[in-house]
């Protein structure tokens, strides 16, 4: 570039021009010297090397060249895309285009690093200067912004000037300005009422200002400010102020947001705080050029008791506003309002008069007098955010009568008399009936209620997310972009909607799944088909790329879903590529065929020449001579002329061909053949085939036709072969030249094909992602319902309640991107359908959740055992897999997977075993760590004990015992035993590993701890049931189900555990009292059996006592009787309660009626498979049903307790098997390597160790590990989860691009 400039300059030959040129050159030379950098890099890489000046110059020129190429390429790209600004992306693309693959990646990453570090250094500079400014301005006054640099006054209400508001209500108002001047008076009046004043505000730092106003493009955009209210100063001055972002949307300037409500226990109908958002707008004096307005924020704090909630709301709103979107939030809390009722009123525009609200428990009406351009937004307050209000806001503009989802709120907008009445009535009756239901305990209402203790402690995995069914109204133009955004987010599960049920003119109930509408009747079928076509083309491309062994560039980047119009470009691009490729392929195929023919001909000429030469050698001068010799020919009386055909045939067909010729021609033909050494390529399949040249001599035309027919039959290719040697030579030369020509043409074709494919390989992954995204979006859009006007798409989706905000945000983003002005509407719906189960997991908990889900997906919002499984699963596993050595191996493997997580995940290995292992890497890691622990407890490291703390035994063996290798029994006896009376501090004493009574000792120990942990595990499961009973409002179930169950378990098996502890602590070796010596310790099992059978021995052994403690017989008898007596409670308690409630319900006629209507609604949605599945099972309606259900449940529990307790003995059994197996392996394999008492023993040990290691990994770690894993899984699924877990839910499967991308590669 510099050179070009120079030439231009010299052409002008102007003095001034020259001067300019020289300065330019100087300037361009100054930064363009790369020698310094080259030198630096050189020193970094090779510190000893140096470089000559010439080499440096070459390097310098090289760098220049590269940069100028980059610049020109980038400039070309800008032109190509018809943009006017050169951006970083152009440079990146240019780099990719110019530099080869790896180098380009490297260059881009280095450059971005450099840019990033440059930017951060600049930012730090800015921060430093900013900090200086902060020091100058006291922080308490800092964060208020005013573009016009005028001080703003902030004032606070001390009292509420609205008598109609119920007194237990708190209003936080955010005042928004508009441009009307006449509102000023209002404002002043308003301000007069404010008692306290805030100190004047200080201009906020200019950097923030700049940020804020960057977004502010629309001419009539408004700026709002929200004051985070410090609730410690209830009626006082707000301490801190923050900047609100701008609203660019001209018609929708405000949004409402609402706080989650505190839980209402079903019995408490009232005393609920709800919130009302109230917003007025007024102009302020200092409006700047950009129409940015100053805002004021007033807080009305009336009651101290509502303050904490207010604080929550404020912080929440504050977060949202500072972080993401323009949104103003206020809340008015009202008393005596049910949580699921309408409670948000948002007024945008001008209020002539203050609003009024009346709330009398079931009805709230608000009366607002409004000017013509005012909008009122009403929302329902069931813990959701602004979306219902927006519906109403929209509809109110159309002067429609509206009912919100929660019930029957009506909205009337009468334009002539600018007043508006909002009335809301909740469906009290139907709700009541549901509450009755839930109080009875047979069925529940899926409302947002949580027990208080759960709200206090956030336990994310404890229950599945609270879900809500939402209706989504999207403008047709914006639908695509919105769905794309939702796909990136992956938090909404769309349902197939076809028929919306209309009631009173608007949507009330859920729509139906529609099995009748076939795939062709939907709206976006065509688009989906186009995507399929594109995918097909891409697959074709991919196949071709793979055929040429071109590496496919996978940058792992995730391009955004392309715009619909981009789809056409993509289609065109793919079409072009495919056509080009097909053409190239066709050409090359034709060329190859040609080439093959020529090569075959060449071979024929060459081989036949040898035949003819041979003949010539054997005395026949030319081919005219007959093969049979002169005599034979003369014998026939005439000179015979032999004809011949030459051709090529597949080598494997040759024998059959020869035989056929012989038979068909009765031996009258003569065949010579020669193999072609080099393999030939079949042009169609591309395979390498071996062929043979043959030449057939025959006499007469009849034979000739016959021979030709046979050749045809055997797919042999015949070539014309000239008869004279001269002609043959000539032909051979011609063939050779043609082959050479063809070779060059073929090479060019191949090069072209390669170029096309390499270019495609760079983008193909990206294209795949794009096309799949488009396809999935249209697929989702097909599930939507098109409304009558065709302007709006209606969708229904399940979404997590906590993510409503996020979804709103992304919907808004989608709308903005599509350029649509109509905001999307997300409307919460009430449904009796059971929502899907969604457990938010991370990479650590996901594995454990999968273990639980494999048994059955949790019923919606029931206690999720996954969080407990995280500890109990590895623990129980380690009890069976207790060997520190094997545990270490497992830990190392899992650790490797965890550490190398990202590179391994990027490899996308498809092997099934690997996928399972990798998905469970965190489970394996924990299992390994726990096994190491258990190994030290059992004192097993590859079946050898480790003596860390010094054994507590001192073994004295007699001379005889030593001589005969007796290790002897370990007797913890003081007199003749070996015990030092202080136990080994951790785990099993290592000396047991050598003792002859090792197995009996360990068995007793392991059996006991198995039972103890089993009972604890099961008891924990039963206790978890309480959380389920309480959550679903089945409080009586605690009494009739939980209490009998836990009594049964504790009185029988809990007591068994207690007996074990008594035995462990009471009897010891060397006790002075003979009754306390180990010999007198009773067998726990016998004691327990005796207890159940009421069989007590009267005769004790000598010096022993029959019972472990006084009163044992009485206590045991009482416990057995109690345990038996609770069984009838378990059996009949629930059915009897049900009967009583049924009777009560019958007496209550009204309630019954409403029950009927509720069921009527169910009928409407009948035929929907989902509803059918999820209704029913949990809500038995007949007494006999309940009775049978409960009888089964009881029998299952009672018998289960016995069998499950025994089942935990598998912990002992597998642990025994594992330790014995590893000991056998050591004995039978590794010890063989230690038998040789010479140096070569080492070499043998080398091989034997390898064998031992292989067996250890394959048998002990893999096989035993798998079996222990499966047994642990069973213990969790059957023994633990059967105590509380229904697992009757269905999984939440959100529409997510991530999932789609994950699934698709597996299908290939």
């Amino acid at each position, binding site marked *: 570039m510099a050179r070009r400039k120079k030439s231009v300059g010299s052409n002008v030959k102007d003095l001034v021009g020259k001067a300019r040129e020289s300065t330019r050159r100087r300037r361009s030379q100054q930064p363009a010297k790369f020698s310094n950098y080259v030198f630096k890099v050189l020193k970094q890489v090779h510190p000893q090397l140096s470089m000559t000046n010439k080499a440096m110059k070459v390097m310098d020129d090289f760098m220049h060249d590269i940069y100028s190429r980059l610049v020109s390429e980038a400039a070309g790209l800008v032109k190509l895309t018809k943009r006017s600004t050169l951006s970083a992306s152009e440079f990146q693309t240019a780099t990719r285009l110019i530099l080869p693959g790896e180098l380009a990646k490297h260059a881009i990453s280095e450059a971005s690093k450099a840019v990033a570090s440059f930017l951060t250094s600049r930012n730090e500079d800015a921060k430093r200067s900013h900090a200086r400014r902060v020091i100058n301005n006291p922080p308490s006054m800092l964060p208020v912004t005013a573009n016009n640099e005028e001080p703003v006054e902030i004032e606070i209400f001390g009292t509420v000037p609205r008598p109609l508001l119920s007194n237990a209500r708190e209003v936080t108002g955010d005042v928004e300005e508009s441009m009307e001047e006449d509102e000023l008076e209002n404002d002043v009046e308003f301000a007069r009422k404010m008692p306290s004043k805030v100190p004047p505000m200080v201009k906020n730092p200019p950097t923030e200002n700049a940020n804020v106003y960057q977004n502010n493009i629309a001419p009539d955009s408004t700026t709002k400010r929200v004051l985070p209210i410090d609730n410690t100063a209830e009626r006082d001055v707000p301490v801190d102020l923050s900047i609100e972002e701008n609203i660019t949307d001209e018609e929708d300037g405000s949004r409402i947001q609402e706080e989650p409500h505190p839980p209402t226990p079903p019995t408490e109908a009232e005393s609920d705080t709800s919130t009302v958002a109230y917003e007025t707008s007024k102009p302020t004096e200092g409006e700047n050029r950009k129409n940015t307005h100053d805002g004021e924020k007033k807080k009305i704090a009336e009651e101290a008791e509502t303050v904490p909630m207010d604080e929550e709301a404020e912080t929440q709103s504050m977060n949202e506003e500072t972080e993401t979107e323009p949104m103003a939030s206020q809340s008015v809390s009202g008393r005596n309002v049910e949580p699921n009722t309408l409670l948000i009123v948002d007024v945008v525009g001008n209020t002539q008069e203050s609003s009024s609200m009346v709330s009398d428990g079931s009805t709230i009406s608000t009366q607002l007098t409004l000017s013509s351009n005012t909008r009122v937004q009403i929302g329902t307050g069931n813990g959701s955010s602004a979306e219902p209000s927006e519906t109403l806001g929209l509809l109110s503009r159309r002067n429609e009568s509206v009912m919100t989802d929660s019930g029957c709120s009506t909205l009337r907008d009468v334009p002539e008399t600018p007043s508006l009445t909002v009335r809301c009535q909740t469906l009290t009756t139907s709700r009541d009936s549901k509450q009755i239901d839930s109080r009875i305990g047979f069925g529940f209402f899926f409302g947002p209620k949580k027990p208080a203790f759960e709200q206090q402690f956030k336990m994310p995995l404890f229950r599945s997310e609270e879900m809500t069914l939402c209706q989504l109204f999207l403008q047709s133009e914006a639908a695509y972009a919105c769905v794309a955004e939702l796909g990136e987010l992956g938090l909404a599960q769309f349902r197939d909607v076809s028929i919306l049920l209309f009631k009173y003119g608007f949507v009330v109930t859920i729509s139906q799944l529609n099995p009748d509408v076939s795939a062709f009747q939907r709206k976006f079928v065509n688009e989906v088909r186009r995507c399929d076509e594109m995918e097909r083309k891409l697959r074709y491309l991919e196949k071709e790329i793979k055929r040429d062994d071109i590496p496919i560039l996978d940058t792992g980047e995730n391009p955004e879903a392309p715009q619909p119009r981009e789809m056409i470009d993509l289609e065109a691009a793919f079409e072009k590529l495919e056509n080009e490729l097909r053409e190239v392929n066709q050409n090359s195929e034709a060329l190859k065929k040609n080439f093959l023919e020529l090569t075959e001909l060449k071979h024929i000429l060459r081989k036949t020449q040898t035949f003819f030469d041979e003949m010539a050698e054997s005395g026949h001068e030319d081919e005219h001579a007959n093969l049979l010799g002169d005599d034979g020919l003369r014998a026939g009386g005439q000179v015979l002329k032999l004809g011949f055909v030459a051709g090529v045939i597949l080598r494997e067909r040759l024998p059959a061909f020869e035989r056929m010729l012989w038979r068909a021609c009765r031996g009258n033909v003569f065949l010579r053949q020669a193999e072609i050494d080099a393999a030939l390529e079949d042009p169609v399949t591309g395979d390498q085939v071996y062929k043979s040249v043959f030449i057939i001599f025959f006499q007469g035309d009849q034979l000739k036709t016959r021979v030709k027919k046979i050749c045809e039959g055997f797919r042999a290719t015949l070539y014309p072969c000239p008869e004279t040697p001269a002609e043959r030579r000539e032909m051979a030369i011609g063939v050779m030249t043609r082959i050479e020509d063809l070779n060059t043409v073929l090479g060019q074709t191949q090069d072209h094909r390669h170029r096309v494919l390499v270019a495609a390989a760079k983008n193909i992954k990206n294209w795949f992602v794009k096309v799949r995204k488009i396809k999935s979006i249209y697929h989702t859009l097909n599930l939507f319902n098109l409304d009558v006007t065709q302007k709006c798409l209606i969708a229904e989706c399940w979404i997590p309640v906590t993510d409503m905000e996020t979804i709103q945000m992304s919907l808004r983003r989608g709308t903005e991107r599509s350029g649509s002005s109509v905001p999307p509407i997300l409307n919460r719906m009430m449904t009796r359908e059971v929502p899907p189960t969604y457990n938010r997991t991370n990479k650590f908990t996901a594995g454990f959740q999968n273990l639980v889900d494999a048994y059955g997906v949790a019923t919606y919002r029931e206690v999720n055992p996954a969080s407990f499984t995280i500890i109990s699963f590895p623990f129980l596993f380690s009890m069976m897999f207790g060997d520190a050595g094997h545990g270490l191996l497992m830990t190392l493997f899992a650790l490797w997977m965890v550490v190398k997580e990202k590179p391994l995940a990027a490899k996308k290995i498809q092997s099934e075993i690997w996928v399972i292992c990798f998905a469970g890497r965190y489970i394996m890691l924990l299992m390994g760590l726990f096994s190491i622990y258990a190994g030290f407890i059992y004192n097993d490291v590859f079946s050898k004990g480790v003596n860390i703390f010094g054994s507590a035994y001192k073994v004295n063996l007699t001379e005889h015992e*030593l001589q005969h290798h007796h290790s002897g029994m370990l007797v913890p006896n003081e007199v003749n035993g070996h015990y030092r009376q202080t136990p080994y501090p951790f785990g099993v004493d290592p000396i047991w590993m*050598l003792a002859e009574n090792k197995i009996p000792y360990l068995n007793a120990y392991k059996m006991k701890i198995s039972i103890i942990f089993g009972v604890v595990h099961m008891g924990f499961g039963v206790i978890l049931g309480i959380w389920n009973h309480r959550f679903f409002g089945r409080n009586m179930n605690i009494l009739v189900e939980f209490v009998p169950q836990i009594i049964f378990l504790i009185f029988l098996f809990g007591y068994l555990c207690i007996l074990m502890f008594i035995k462990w602590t009471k009897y010891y070796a060397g006790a002075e009292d003979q009754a306390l010596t180990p010999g007198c310790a009773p067998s726990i099992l016998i004691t327990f059996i005796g207890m159940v059978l009421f069989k007590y021995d009267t005769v004790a052994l000598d010096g022993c006592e029959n019972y472990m403690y006084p009163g044992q017989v009485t206590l045991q008898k009482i416990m057995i009787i109690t345990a038996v007596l609770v069984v009838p409670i378990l059996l009949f308690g629930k059915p009897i309660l049900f009967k009583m409630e049924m009777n009560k319900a019958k007496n209550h006629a009204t309630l019954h009626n409403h029950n009927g209507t509720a069921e009527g609604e169910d009928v409407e949605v009948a035929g929907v498979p989902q509803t059918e599945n999820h209704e029913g099972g949990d809500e038995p309606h007949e007494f006999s049903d309940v009775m049978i259900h409960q009888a089964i449940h009881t029998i299952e529990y009672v018998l289960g307790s016995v069998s499950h307790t025994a089942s935990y003995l598998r912990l002992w059994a597998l642990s025994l098997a594992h330790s014995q197996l590893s000991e056998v392996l050591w004995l039978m394999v590794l010890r063989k390597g230690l038998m040789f*008492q010479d140096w070569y023993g080492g070499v043998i040990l*080398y091989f034997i160790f390898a064998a031992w290691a292989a067996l250890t990994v394959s048998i002990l770690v893999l096989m035993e590990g798998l079996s222990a894993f499966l047994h642990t899984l069973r213990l969790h699924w059957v023994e633990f989860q059967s105590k509380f877990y229904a697992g009757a839910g269905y999984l939440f499967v959100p529409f997510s691009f991530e999932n789609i991308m994950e699934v698709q590669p597996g299908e290939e």
Partner: protein
Amino acid sequence: MPFCGPKCSLCCTIVSVWGIVQLVLMGVFFYTHSVALAEDLTLKEHYSNLDDFYKDVNTSYEQNAYNCWIAALIYLVTLCVSVHQFWLNNRVSYQV
């Protein structure tokens, strides 16, 4: 030139590392006359003399220790070879 493939060399590397660690430790334990390894000694069925017994036990402990270390040394060689092979394999695959 690589004479065993990437998987083979990786497997050998892992086994050798394991072998070195375990055999060196076992050698140390034999050398210090660890009781836990007493079962792995090579002794006669019956001894008439206690001194013979002790002598055999001591030589056996020592010999086993040396054997373990010899095996560990061979594993060290294996490790070097297999790491080299692994490296070669990796380099080859990069070049392609």
